[in-house]
Every structure is written in C-alpha cells, then in structure tokens.
C-alpha cells in the first residue's frame, strides 16, 4: 500500500516536469580521444583499423623495396548491419600512406571523369595557353589496387550486447593478378545496459 502511494505521488510530480526542454551543450574534444558513446562503429574503431593496416603495409615487401609503387583504392565493402561510410577508413589509410612517402596513389578510380574533362578543356577549348596545357597519354598506370571488406556479428542477450567487427584489406598486383599482401583487424566491443539511469 505504501509503495502504491509513493509511486502515485512520485509519478504525479515527475509528470508535471516531464517534457521540459533543455539545450544540448557543445564542446571541442581531441579527435584521438577514445570514443565510447555507443557500441556502434565509431571514430576510435576507424583509427585503430587504419593504424593497423598502415603499419602492416609499410613493413610489407611491396613498400619496403623503395620503388614507390602506384596504388589505387578499389572499394571496401560494408557487410555490417550499420550504415558505415567505409571510404572514411580508406581515406585515412591513403593519407597516412602518402605521408610516409613510400607509395603514390592514382586518382583515376575516383575522379577520372573530371581528369578527362579537364584534359579536353586544356587541349581542345582554345582557352588555355598551349604551352601550359597538359597533353593526353601521360597518366601513370597503377601497379596495385586495394580492396577489402568490413564485416560484423552482433549478439544481444539480456542486458549485454556484443559486437565483433572484422576489417580485411588486400593488395592486388595488377600485372600478375596475385594478392601480394593482406591483413585483417578484429575489434570486439561489449555494452551492458545499466541497472540504474536517468
């Protein structure tokens, strides 16, 4: 009986204040700060994966030979149950690899239409000074391309949710068709619904 009374009283008071609006607070944080807002794929996962892939590639025979081969990124397929922009992972890998100076990247797979349009403009429009116009036939052919996939397994039992991510990246020699390098990174995350909360 007492419980019922308390429940009624608490509910009545809380109802009156329920729905009061509050504005979100905004602050800046470090991009490297570990992010654990939710169990979903986040910035820390992206950084962990990119770091592992870059370190592994840099020590591979393909890059340690000093030949500065030309790469392009084919695609990383998202096979998880979340809408993840996998390009942000490959972008991070590409930027770090480029900064190492050990590899060059061809932009053909991403912006070839724009390159062709620009070449046509420079060579055929008559607007560009011919002495500075770039001629066709000078593109550098890629030696290798990267492709991979991100997969996940998600399980939920009671208050616990478990997610396992696996990122796999392969490097293919265009000339031979061989996979010259491959690596993978696994990440496991668990979340537990709190017993008490707001």
């Amino acid at each position, binding site marked *: 009986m007492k419980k019922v009374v308390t429940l009624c009283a608490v509910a009545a008071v809380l*109802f009156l204040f329920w729905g009061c609006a509050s504005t979100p607070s905004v602050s800046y944080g470090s991009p490297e700060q570990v992010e654990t807002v939710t169990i979903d794929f986040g910035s820390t996962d992206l950084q962990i994966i990119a770091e592992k892939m870059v370190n592994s590639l840099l020590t591979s025979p393909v890059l340690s030979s000093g030949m500065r081969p030309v790469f392009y990124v084919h695609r990383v*397929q998202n096979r998880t149950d979340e809408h993840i922009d996998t390009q942000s992972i490959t972008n991070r890998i590409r930027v770090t690899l480029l900064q190492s100076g050990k590899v060059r990247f061809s932009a053909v797979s991403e912006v070839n239409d724009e390159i062709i349009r620009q070449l046509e403009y420079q060579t055929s429009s008559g607007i560009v000074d011919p002495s500075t116009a770039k001629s066709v036939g000078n593109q550098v052919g890629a030696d290798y391309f990267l492709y991979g996939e991100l997969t996940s397994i998600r399980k939920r039992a009671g208050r616990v949710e478990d997610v396992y991510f696996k990122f796999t990246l392969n490097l293919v020699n265009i000339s031979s068709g061989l996979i010259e390098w491959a690596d993978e990174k696994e990440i496991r995350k668990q979340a537990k619904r709190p017993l008490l909360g707001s």
Partner: protein
Amino acid sequence: MGRIDAKSPLCLYIMTRKIILAFIWCTLFLAGCASLESYTRRAYQAQSSLAAGNYADALAVFPESSARGKDEILIRMERAVILQAMGEFRESAEEFIQSSRRIRELEDRAVISAAKSTEQAGTLILSERVSTYEGQDFEKVLIHALNAVNFLLLGDLEGARVEIRNAYRRQDELAKTHARELEQARKELRGVNWQKSLEDTDSQRFDALKRTSQTVQSVYQNAFAYYISALVYELNREQDAAYIDLKKAIAAAPQSRSIQKDLVRLSRALNFRDDSRLWEERFGNIEEPFLEGTDVFVIVAFGVAPVKEALSFPFPLRSGGLAFVSLPVYRFIPTPIQAVRVSYDGRSVETSVLNDTDAIAARNLMDKFPILFAKQVVRSYLKAQATRGLSREYGPLGAFAGTLASAVTEQADLRTWSSLPKEIHVARLIVPHGVGSIELDSAPYGSSQSIEIPQGTKHLIVWSRMTDWGMTIHTQAY
C-alpha cells in the same frame, strides 16, 4: 521521537490524502496534456489524402517539426512511408534510420530508469496513451524491410544489405523478448479470462480480429522482409544467403508462386539436387523459371493500414466493485484493389501478398492482449483504491468524482502507423531480352501503366504505390 504506526488512523489518513492528491494531479495533467491530442484524427486526415493519392497533403499532416516528444518514432515512420510513396527515397531512408535509432535508444535505457519508471507509473495510473510510442514489434521489423526497398531504389546495394541484416536480427530478438513478456503476463493473469471479457463486450469485432490474426503464422516471420532479404543477397551475389531466406519466406507465404520459382531456380543453381527435387515435387510444374532475360522484381503497395478503436467495458475487480476498461481493437479499411497483374507480350503474372498489414497487426495485438490486460488489472486496482479514498473523504460525491475520473482517464492507446499500406504484393518474373516494357494493372478497376525496361538491364526493381486514383511507379535498373 516515536514512530507512527503504519496502521494507525493518522497514517491511513495521510496515505489516503496522498493517493487522492496524486490522482487529482494526474487527472489534471491528463486533461491539459497536449500529447493526448487525438492521433486518430491526424491519422484519418493522412489516410484520406493517401487514398486520394495526395501525398503532399498526407505529409503535411506530419511535418518534420512535429517529430518530437512521445510520438516522435510514430511520426517519423509515417513520414518515411509517405516520402517513399512520393519517390523521395533518400529522405524516407533518413526518417526510417532516425526512427530505428530512437527505438534502440529507448530499448537501451537503464533497466530502472527515472524516465521509464515515470512513464510506466503513468501507464499504470492513467492509461497506455501517456507512454512514449516505441513501435509495435511488427513495425520494428517493417522499418528495416521497407528501408531496404529505399536503398534498392537508390541503387545502393550495400545500404539495402545493412537493412535486411537488421530486419533479420530484429525478428529474432523481438520474438525472444515477446516470449518473456507473455510468460510474465500469463502469470499475472492466472484465473482472469480476458478473452471472454472482450467477446462478451463486442463478439463481432473481437471475432473479426481473431479471424484476421489467424491468417499469419507469426509476427516474427515476415514473408516480405525475408523475400526482400533474399533479393538483396542475390543482387550482392550471395546466393547461399539468399537461398536460406527464400526457405524462410516460403514458410511464411507458401502460396507465393514467385518464391516457389526462386527456390527451384536457386536450388538448381547451387547444385542442391535433393532440395530442387523436393521443391519441384511440392510445387508441381514451375513454368519457365530458367528463361534468359531481365529479372523483374515488382513490389506493389496499396490500401491503408487498419485503424484502432477503443473497446470499453466494465470489468469486475477481485476486491469487489467494477473498473472501467478500455482496450484497442482494429477496424480494417477495405480497398477496391483485389489483385495486381504484371504482363508482357500477352503473358501475365499475378502478384501475391507478402505483407498483409491487417493480419500482422491483428496478430500482433492478439499476442499483446494478455500484456495489456495484465497492466489494465493493476491500473483498475489503483484507480479503485483512489476512488475509495475519495469516497471516504468526501462521501457519495467523492465516490462519484472518483468513478468519473476513472472512466475519463481510462483511454485506450489508439496510436497506430496509419500510412502503412494495407497490403504489399510481390511478383518476380524473367522478361525475355528484346521485350522493351511491361504493363502493371490493378483489378477490378483496371488502372494500368507501362514500365520501360532499359536495354541491357539484368535486374529491374519496380516499386509502385497504388491508390484509389491511380499509381506511382519508380524503378531502378541493375
């Protein structure tokens, strides 16, 4: 200082006063609460506009700015379906993603959360209507299946794959959660014949609900979700995964000729000889399943979802006296469309129903009745206590006020996803190379439209929402 005896007259007096105070506060709150504005009125407006093919008017009933508070999830789902009918697939996908994210946030709240406890107390004292709309189980599955269609029509197979994986996972999770809730409710309702109470009140409506609900096997095995899933896997060149979902789809919709044909075709392609022999024996002569040509997958949605109405009746309490009970039941809205035909070159294929919203919603409600009724019994007890308190305090006038407040606050939760189509049909056919178009027509009114097949198309996804006034068609070639 001495302690006051809990059974002392003073303590009982204070407790009674507290109950009365809480009850009056709640009633006042209920009377002035904006969130209790009739959702059914808005739903009716939207359904009328949808039936007339005025999608912009239907969308205007649920502006983005109204997707806040307790009805946020519901409004986002309404917007998503209307935007999908309009062909605004990107915006529709965003609304579906937002609603599923919000549902997950609510589900992930702490086991004992202040907000959730307040709501639960509110539903126990007042009615289900004061709670945040978290989506019905079948809606939580359909969100993903329908969003997979959005991504398919955007040409984004990866996005569609994400959604079908979620649809699959949700069916599994929700079935388990529901089983636990049902077990708990059955324990609480031991000895209470809730079915008889509903039958005695309105046997016609209850029988219609029961009959309709029996046409689907389970809320947690949605044939449409499985078939879309199989399609997405196949387009992603994952035939093994597609075959698994086809087997689930046929269990949920055994009459679908398209699924039957696909099972024979895929079991042969995967070299599952025993399986293909079994399917052929079971389905009989499968006409031209292996013809070379364009694979055309037609999804047709028509009609509007059922609406909820309150079924109110007095219910005798174990402790004596009567309580007012108000539970939702569905009213089904008929559609003039009986069937949809896809034809080319003098041949035609009839679509088959894979999502019968009437039946799924009815089944979902029948499954939830014990849970709703168990809550109702507790609520009735609390209200009876408050009425007794008022009676003791103010005599017959107090008793009258208490009974009146009890009846007024007892409102069934009539919120429902109103813009959902009544039925979603699917047909899959292989159109020979060289045939440039197919015809889609509805019977018996003969509304018809031609759909062009772009040259070199391997797979063509066709999405159509039909209304009383015609049809809108969107396609995506792969």
